[in-house]
Structure formats: C-alpha cells, structure tokens
C-alpha cells in the first residue's frame, strides 16, 4: 500500500526517531525509565505502521504472519524468563537483531551497483554476523553451556588475524563485484570472527561484551539504513551504536578495566585468565549456627551480595534473612557494588524482585563510610569486589577498581562455594584475616540454614 506520500513517511519516521531519543534519555533516570521504554515501543509501532502504509509491498499476509510468529515467540519468553537469566535473554535478542541486519543486507546486494552502497552491505553483513555469533557465545557462557573461563587454543591469534584479513578481502570483492558468493563467504568469516572474539573472554567480563555487541548491532543497523536509503534505520542504529559505546566504556570503568584489555587480555596471556589454584593456607570456617549468632546479636549488618548469589538464585532467601534480622531489631542494609551480579545493575534488579526495600540498597559511595560503624559484613558469593588487592597491590588485575571496604567492619563473614579465587583469579587476603570467618557451600543452601538458625535464636 502507498497510502502515505514520501513527505508524510519522512515525518512519521522523524517522529519515531524522536521517540527513540526520548526513550534513551528516559532510561537514563530511575524516575522516567519505564515511561522512556514505553515511548520507545510507541516509536517502534509508529515506524512499523508507517512502512506498511508507505512502501510498495508484496507478500503482506506472509510478512504479517512472520511478525506474528516473532511476537508469539518473544513475548512469552520475555515475560516468563527468570530475573537471573535476564542477561542471556538480552544477549539473545541482540544476536538475532544482528542476524536480521546481516540477512537484510545480503538480500539488498543485488539491488544496487553503487560501490558505496555495496560497502555498506559488506559492513552490515560482517558486523551483523560478528554480533550474531558473538552473542551466541555469550549466551552459552552465561548459561554455562560452555566454560566461563577464557577459552584459548594454540594459534588462535594467528587464526584471528587470518580471518580478519580474509574478511577484508571478501568485503573488497563484494564491493568490486557485487557477487553473492563472496557475500556468503564474508558472512561465514564474520561468524567465525564473532566466535573467536568472544571465546577468550572470561565469565565476569561477558556483560561488557554484551554491551559492546549491542553497540555493534546498532552500527550494523545504521549501515543497513544506508543500504536501504532509510533515514530512520540510520538514525536509530547510530544512536544505539553511540550510546552503546559509551555504556560499554562506563561499565568497563566501573570494573576498573579497559575495553581492549577485556577483549584481548587473554591473547596477551594476561589478566582475564587468572588461576584456578586453590590456596591451602588456613582459614577459619564457621557453622550456620555461629553465623546466625553473629548476625542476630549485631546492631548493624551490611550484606554484600555478588555473582555467587545470582548464580545460586538466593535473592529471595537473602531478602527473608534481612527481614528476619530486622524483626530482631538489627539494622540491615545491602551494599551493592556497581558490577555486582552478572551485569552492572543486575543485583539491583534481583533484589528489587525479591522485594528488598529500595532504601536498604546502598551504592558504593554511600556504603563505604558506614563500614567502620558496622558490626558484621556478610559477603554472599562475592570476592573480587571486596578484595583489598584492588587498593594495595599494583599490578593485580583488579588494581584500581573501587571496592567495598568490608575490612573496616567489626567482623567479616564470607559465604563461599569454595576457596577458589574470584574471576580475576587472585587470592583475597581478607579471607585469611583473623576477624574473618567462612561458611562454605552453595549460597542459597547456606542462607537457608543461616535463616533457620536465626529464626531459632
């Protein structure tokens, strides 16, 4: 249907682009975030209706059926996914978006002789394919289908170099000849590059990679806007590419890391690899009953939740423990490190889901001055974010990362699965401190037992 003329089409696309800008702006502040997301969805709806009403389209019933299928798949998954699995789902959605962009570009290749358009086609295909394959690897790592440790094999940097050279050559041939065969070769090389790019990244750094791939998909969509001569795709893709790049840098900075260090650190045999060696130095291990006494008779307890809590899905149990302690007159707050959980801000989502009061969540700057007045710091499934090596050991992989200064609390209790070092792979001196006790086991099991013991006090 061509109900809308080119002028109206452009105006509606402009309205959609403005919606996307307002959406990103709104998402940057807690008060307006939900409305921002709704504005973004409205913009997307306007854009989709506009394309149906303006472009000369065949196959409309089939297209509508495909949209229905996509929605029927996405909505139930998005509604039912466990909050702890949110990062995987975001990565998955990002990957399919990149895949869609790559397919759109390859289909448009036959429609233009302009070398600039072909260059945009090659770029979209390559970046979209990298994003698709890279996201698939991040999903595998987050689901622990593949190892969360950096995966490297001999000759990997050489293979990566060969793939990059091959991709540039195939891209050049696509621009020169417009051949679909070379385009498919480029697609395959892009997929391999995506795998090689993400396999060497350690589990704790995966969130940064998701954010980076998100920016990549944005760039692929922007380039597809050039391919199709569609300003909305160009603007929306560029917005996501730019904001995604900034967000990636901000997240990496919160972890005290550089983006290049995360992506290529393992290649240099450096920081992300870490060690899996367990220490045999003596520690003071504790029982759930002892921990319950420490907590139940304290005046002020600060809980530091981490990755291990998210993995064990212990957020509801820890919320119950906080409630039980509060009922005994203990002041309980949660100190949230910026990168606690599986994605920055993830822990806030998990604890919000478990109905922990908003005002009990303290950010790093708020929490640190209060540790000297704290009787017990309870660290659940976290390690690197409380490791004093970040302040005291130049050269440690996490050196320079802001940490929660739990060592200033009266007593320190770690709930840990084992003595294995954190993702950064360095030992935490705090574990051997005389005022530290450790309760080993799965975070959720340990919390359930401590909770039972607190109730029995």
């Amino acid at each position, binding site marked *: 249907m061509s109900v809308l003329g080119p002028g109206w089409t452009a105006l509606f696309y402009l309205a959609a682009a403005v919606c996307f800008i307002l959406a990103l702006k709104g998402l940057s502040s807690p008060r307006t975030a939900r409305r921002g997301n709704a504005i973004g969805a409205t913009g997307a709806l306007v854009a989709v209706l506009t394309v149906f009403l303006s472009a000369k389209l065949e196959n409309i019933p089939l297209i509508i059926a495909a949209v229905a299928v996509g929605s029927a798949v996405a909505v139930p998954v998005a509604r039912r996914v466990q909050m702890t699995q949110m990062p995987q789902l975001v990565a998955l959605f990002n990957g399919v978006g990149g895949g869609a962009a790559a397919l759109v570009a390859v289909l448009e290749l036959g429609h233009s002789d302009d070398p600039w358009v072909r260059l945009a086609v090659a770029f979209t295909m390559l970046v979209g394919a990298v994003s698709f394959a890279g996201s698939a690897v991040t999903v595998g790592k987050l689901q622990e289908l593949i190892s969360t440790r950096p995966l490297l094999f001999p000759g990997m940097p050489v293979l990566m170099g060969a793939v990059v050279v091959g991709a540039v050559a195939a891209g050049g041939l696509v621009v020169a000849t417009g051949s679909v065969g070379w385009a498919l070769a480029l697609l395959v090389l892009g997929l391999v590059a995506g795998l090689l790019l993400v396999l060497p990244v350690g589990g704790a750094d995966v969130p940064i990679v998701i954010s980076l791939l998100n920016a990549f998909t944005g760039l692929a969509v922007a380039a597809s806007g050039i391919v199709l001569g569609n300003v909305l795709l160009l603007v929306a*893709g560029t917005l996501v590419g730019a904001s995604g790049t900034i967000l990636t840098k901000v997240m990496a900075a919160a972890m005290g890391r550089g983006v290049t260090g995360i992506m290529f650190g393992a290649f240099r045999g450096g920081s992300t690899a870490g060690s899996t060696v367990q220490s045999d130095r003596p520690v003071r291990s504790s029982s759930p009953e002892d921990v319950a006494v420490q907590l139940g008779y304290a005046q002020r307890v600060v809980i530091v939740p981490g990755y291990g809590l998210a993995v064990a899905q212990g957020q509801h149990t820890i919320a119950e423990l906080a409630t039980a302690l509060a009922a005994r007159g203990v002041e309980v707050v949660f100190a949230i490190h910026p990168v606690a959980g599986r994605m920055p801000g993830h822990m806030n989502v998990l604890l919000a889901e478990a109905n922990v009061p908003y005002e009990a969540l303290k950010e790093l700057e708020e929490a640190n001055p209060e540790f000297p007045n704290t009787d017990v710091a309870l660290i659940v499934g976290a390690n690197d974010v409380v490791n004093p090596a970040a302040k005291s050991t130049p050269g440690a992989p996490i050196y320079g990362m802001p940490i929660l200064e739990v060592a200033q609390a009266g007593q320190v209790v770690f709930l840990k699965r084992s003595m294995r070092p954190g993702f950064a792979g360095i030992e935490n001196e705090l574990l051997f401190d005389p005022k530290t006790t450790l309760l080993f086991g799965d975070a959720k099991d340990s919390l359930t037992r401590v909770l039972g013991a607190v109730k029995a006090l």
Partner: protein
Amino acid sequence: MMDPITLLTVVVLAVFVGFEVVSKVTSKLHTPLMSGANAIHGIILVGAIIVAGQASDPWLLTVALIAVVLATVNLVGGFVVTDRMLEMFGSRKTNRPRAGAGKDGT
C-alpha cells in the same frame, strides 16, 4: 542513495545525541538501559519488512521472512523484557516516592 553530505550530517548529529543522552546514567540502570537500547536496534524490522515486500524469488522471500521473524523477536522481546525489569523499580517508587527521589542522583 541519499546525498552523502546529508547522510554524514545525520550520522554525526545522531552520534552526539547518542553520547549525550546516556553520559550520566547511574550504574543501577545499566542493565535496563542496555536492554532498552537493544530493543531500539530491533527497528531493523522496518528494513526486513521492506526487503520481504520486494522479494519475488521464493528462496529470497524465505530468507527475508526469517529476517522479519528475527527482527520482531529483537524488537518486541526487547521492549517487553525491559519493561519487566523496570516494573520492579517502578512499583517501589510509587510506594515510597520520597525515598526514591532522594537517591536517584539525577
């Protein structure tokens, strides 16, 4: 193809807007913001619809329809999942408007 200078103008302005709108985001919103930006690039659906609407060969149409399905998953799923995350922040805010307002740091 569009006029290259116009294209460049649009891209440069969009880059600055993209940098500007997210530069001061609090860390507790990083996850929803990433997810929201992720939903926005699902707008590739518009491109997929155009390509599917022009496909005449059955094979090309099949590939284009796959692209439509994938793009819809990205777009629709992205907005729904972002809303679910934010729902939990939002409900808290209406219950305790004053405590929330103090800590937003905006």
